[in-house]
């Protein structure tokens, strides 16, 4: 079986500045701020996975920041997003609450799940993040049901299902797409195609590296995009989501990206024999943050020093949130039993 030719997975391409025309300055700066916040928060997590302070499995999405940020900017608070094991970016893009995430990862009561979830079970109802779980593909039907609920509410809300290319190998994706298509459900399926599932490249798992073929099969509108171009995705989603809200239709976004770290933890997996060294170096040059920052500087929207200030402010916030989270309390012992039933 021949691979589909797809330049979107070529890390030697899409390295230049991105097209920011037509987007307001405040929105562009917001995008940059959110992406930098997510990057630095995950770098902080990486540091403390390595230091041993974080014990729970942490699946870092460094390099993939643009997707969650683009989606978050077209969401409203009554929309409902569901994530998977690598969902820090989806959570932080909506609330920027690094303290809540850090406390959760440390198993502290102040965490978004009161310390009961850790990195893989994060939730923020108030901002539309309805939960993430590490069973691959499990939230795809849940988000589909959330879209059914949204349709019944008749308020024009949508649901968002984040998953990776590995989840497309689960049968439930097919069941869910079929159901959303036949029942006209407003769910945005976001496949963050980072080419890897655990340690295995998509070429060794699927006959094509494009998962959009599943949307096509179910008569769902879709786009295959550069997942490291936050502005491009934002523009596309802004128009597509309006039509989803008014006509209760599903949409499938396949965003190609690359995770800089390994499957889990702070290492890059080259140490466990995954041969991706050259690719990784190339993808680091396709950095979604640097491309936006370069564009903003080039167009005179931010100066280099303003960019640096933004970085410093965020780093300070992250350092102080981490220190505060380390000092927070664990949940009470009775939480073990009292949270089983309502």
């Amino acid at each position, binding site marked *: 079986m021949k691979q589909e030719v797809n330049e979107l997975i070529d890390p030697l391409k899409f390295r230049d500045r991105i097209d920011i025309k037509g987007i307001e300055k405040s929105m562009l700066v917001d995008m940059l701020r959110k992406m930098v916040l997510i990057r630095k928060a995950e770098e902080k997590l990486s540091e403390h996975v390595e230091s041993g302070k974080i014990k729970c499995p942490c699946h870092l999405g460094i390099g993939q920041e643009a997707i969650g940020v683009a989606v978050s900017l077209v969401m409203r608070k009554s929309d*409902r997003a*569901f994530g998977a094991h690598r969902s820090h970016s989806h959570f932080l893009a909506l609330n920027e609450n690094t303290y809540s995430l850090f406390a959760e990862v440390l198993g502290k009561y102040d*965490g*978004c*799940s*009161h*310390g*009961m*979830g850790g990195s893989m*079970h994060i*939730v923020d*109802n108030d901002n539309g993040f*309805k*939960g993430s*779980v590490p*069973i691959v593909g*499990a939230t*795809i*039907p*849940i*988000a*589909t*049901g*959330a*879209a*059914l*609920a*949204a349709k*019944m509410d008749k308020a024009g809300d949508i*649901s968002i299902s984040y998953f990776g290319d590995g989840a497309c190998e689960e*049968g*439930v994706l097919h*069941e*869910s797409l*079929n*159901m959303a298509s*036949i*029942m006209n459900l407003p769910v945005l399926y976001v496949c963050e195609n980072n080419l890897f599932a655990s340690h295995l490249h998509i070429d060794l798992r699927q006959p094509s590296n494009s998962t959009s073929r599943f949307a096509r099969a179910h008569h769902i509108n879709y786009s295959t995009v550069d997942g490291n171009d936050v502005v491009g995705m934002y523009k596309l989603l802004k128009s597509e989501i309006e039509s989803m809200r008014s006509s209760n239709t599903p949409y499938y976004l396949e965003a190609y990206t690359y995770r800089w770290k390994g499957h889990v933890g702070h290492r890059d997996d080259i140490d466990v024999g995954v041969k991706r060294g050259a690719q990784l170096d190339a993808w680091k040059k396709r950095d979604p943050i640097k491309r936006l920052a370069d564009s903003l500087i080039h167009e005179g929207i931010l100066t280099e020093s303003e960019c640096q200030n933004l970085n410093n402010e965020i780093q300070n916030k992250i350092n102080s949130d981490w220190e505060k989270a380390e000092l927070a309390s664990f*949940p009470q012992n009775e*939480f073990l039993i*009292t*949270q*089983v*039933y*309502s």
Partner: protein
Amino acid sequence: MKTTTYAAGILEAYEYLLTNHQDFFIIGQGLWSPWYVGATMTDLDKKFGKDRVIDCPVSELATTGATVGASICGYRPMIVHPRVDFMLLAVDQIVTQAAKWRHMFGGNSTAPATFRAIINRGGEQGAQHSQSLHSWFAHIPGLKVVMPYTAKDARNLMISSVLSNDPVVFLDDRWLYEKEEEYTEIEIIDLNDVLPQKLREGDNITVVGVSYTSLLCEKACEYLENTQGIKSDFFDLRVLNPLKLEEIIKSVNKTGRLLVVDGDWSSCGIASEIIASIMEKVNLDSLKSSPKRITLPDAPAPTSKALEQLYYIKEEQIVETIIELVK
């Protein structure tokens, strides 16, 4: 005397819920077809609309997951699996998603979906159309498991299950659908308050039944009282998880004898759990005989009629075992 049946009880629960709770809807395979779910859902789609009584693709996992998703978003939905065997295709959503949802998010989110499955066996349907598997689900913390025996309970406990703030597996038994009893008015009961119900009073032995086996137990106890004067404290379990056995423990302290009859397999089954839990707490000096259980043989359901006769629990078995324990 106005009477009703188990199937009519379920239908009445649906009518009540669809009329009084706009956040309630039902999804499942065959819901627009008259024969999938017996007389328990007749014409609901015509009466309440196909938007609230939804027939769906042959996708147990996705439709069950969608039920979970809608429940997380403020609805009180129910998925119907016309045979429990097919619900196994959806186990991840029930066991690993819904049951854990509240605990793993520290109480910040809940998934109060109801998973209704129908037990439908016998009639030479063979191994894959005959399972019950309630003991499996009862093993899972966070999941409530309800199995009604009476028509009144089939109705009232279905309402309680849907209104419960926790995910519930509700298993009704097709062998009970025609069972008739006196009609009572609907009672809205908090599922947390539902205990095993004592349906017969006696000093000689404590008998516990679950769903269809409660029918067999009740008949056996009645027969023994009428013919031999053996009087049983007979309990219908009703809720399998979380188990509330205090009244049954008191009863065993009084009678000194215990028989549990369950239409599931022995090994790691609910009968084992009931006996073990009671033995941990009962006054052992009060015991007059070892506790005993009657369950299915540890084999898949056979197809041949002759073997089915051997396989399923019969009233006579219960009668003989009670006599053996009491003498």
